[in-house]
């Protein structure tokens, strides 16, 4: 093969790869733009601040939004302490032994468990055995273990990024290990930990399968008033009006999908924002 044809071949392949990447990018933008075009006409203060009406064929989605926010709040409360402590164990305490390898392997495997299996587990354990019933508590706990691997991994990355000199300096001053961790290491790692947590919590907000059997209900007259209440939640509400209710107005479906996407993207953007901000601050 002469040089020219080899370069032609290169050009063609580069073109193909660029095209493939273009399709992926187009899909992402396509979804976001399409949802905005179709959903923005429904989006109004009224839509997000009123209850559904006429068997969900009109009215707003307030209870679903609130339900999701409560659920996310619960998930934060349960998953962050355990996740961060677990990361501290792995990065600050754990020896390089078989136990540590097993912990790491379990984290990878928990991360790979299908979301519907978390739903089954939540039903079997939190709802039935611990007798929490279908409730915000059971749902939050289920989502917490779902996002735990991400919280652990990202927190550990953040801890790893703190230079060892900091620890040594603190220990040399006579601080205990725990004082070193809480007063020196954690403050340094905090932006990274928050970034990872916010992004993973956003993921929890969009999950449907784990909450199907643990908290989500079709419709509710009142708002949830305790951690033992069932709740309407946004992703499940979208599923219900898109597939379970005949002739639900299409506009409402698009509007709900857009609100859900915006909510999840707010988490992602806030998370990335914190990361960018902390990087800039470090450079200064």
């Amino acid at each position, binding site marked *: 093969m002469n040089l020219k044809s080899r370069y032609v071949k290169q050009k063609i392949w580069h073109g193909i790869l660029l095209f493939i990447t273009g399709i992926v990018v187009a899909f992402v933008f396509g979804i976001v733009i399409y949802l905005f075009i179709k959903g923005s006409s429904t989006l109004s203060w009224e839509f997000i601040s009123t209850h559904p009406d006429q068997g969900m064929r009109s009215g707003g989605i307030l209870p679903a939004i609130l339900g999701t926010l409560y659920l996310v709040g619960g998930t934060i409360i349960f998953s962050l302490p355990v996740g961060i402590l677990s990361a501290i164990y792995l990065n600050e305490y754990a020896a390089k032994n078989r136990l540590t390898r097993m912990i790491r392997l379990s984290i990878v495997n928990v991360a790979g468990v299908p979301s519907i299996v978390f739903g089954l587990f939540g039903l079997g354990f939190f709802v039935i055995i611990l007798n929490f019933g279908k409730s915000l508590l059971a749902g939050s706990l289920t989502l917490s273990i779902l996002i735990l691997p991400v919280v652990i991994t990202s927190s550990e990355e953040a801890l790893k990024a703190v230079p060892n000199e900091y620890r040594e300096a603190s220990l040399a001053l006579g601080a205990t290990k725990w004082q070193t961790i809480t007063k020196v290491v954690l403050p340094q790692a905090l932006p990274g930990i928050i970034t990872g947590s916010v992004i993973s919590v956003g993921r929890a907000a969009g999950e449907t399968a784990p909450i199907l059997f643990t908290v989500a209900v079709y419709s509710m007259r009142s708002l949830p008033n305790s951690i033992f209440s069932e709740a309407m939640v946004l992703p499940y509400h979208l599923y219900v009006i898109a597939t379970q209710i005949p002739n639900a107005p299409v506009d409402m479906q698009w509007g709900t*999908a857009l609100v859900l996407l915006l909510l999840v993207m707010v988490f992602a953007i806030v998370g990335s924002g914190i990361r960018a901000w902390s990087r800039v601050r470090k450079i200064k």
Partner: protein
Amino acid sequence: MKKTPRFRKLKNFIIGKIVLLSGLFSIIVLALILAFLVYNSFKFFSTYPFFEFIFGDRWFPSNEKFGFIPLLVGSLEVAFGAILIAVPMGVGAAIYIGELAPRPVREVLKPIIEILATFPSVVIGFIGLMAVGPIIKRLFNLSIGLAALTGSVMLAFMALPTIISISEDAINAVPNRFRNASTALGATKWETTYKTVVPTASSGIFAAVMLGLGRIVGETMAVLMVTGNSPRIVFSWLQPVRTITATIASEMGETVQGGLHYSALFAIGLILFIITFLINLIADRYINRIKMK
């Protein structure tokens, strides 16, 4: 209390134990999940004939027929189609982003791929229902657009972020001296890419594909919404099917707690857990090779 050295020692000891317990939490969770799947499916496995379950060709809960084959075929069909779409696209995009794209372009592309990972699966399912389904319906002249193929397309896009980001890590991990050596021997950039870089990164790329497959097999809401929900054995991508995950999601609400149907759904959940567990173990084995280089 006075902070004597002894008190500090005790405090550190207790904190150490609490931290250790948190560290062990992931193992505990994994064990609990397995334990509860086994516990709840016990009734099904002890009363329903095992061979009728594994080789049964009909899933018909109202007649107490729980044949696994239709669901397995549905899951495999959708997953196979998704992999067929996602692997060339994911690896192709990873090569472009990791090897060919200029630095500023790469910095723009990476967050865009990350955004794709944040789309909730119901939203992907909804897009499949409203936009992709109708296109497939028109393209293949079907009566409804909800078929295995629609599921494959949506799942392929859901697996792409995983496949792209891990493949790209593997490509980045290839040492530059490999590229330089290849270029010095007179290879073009493309020849270097596909004869040197990609083969060197192949175990990482394989791990990426396995992790993508794990996501595809376990994904629930999108397939539930777009594959048409019909538990019959069909060997066509243009017909409705039903996957293992969609069956659990759609039927659990109708079951009696502790009944045979309820237990059967836990049983297929257990099988799903085992399948994804194995896929992850394989992926983990290969992913460690990226780090070793």
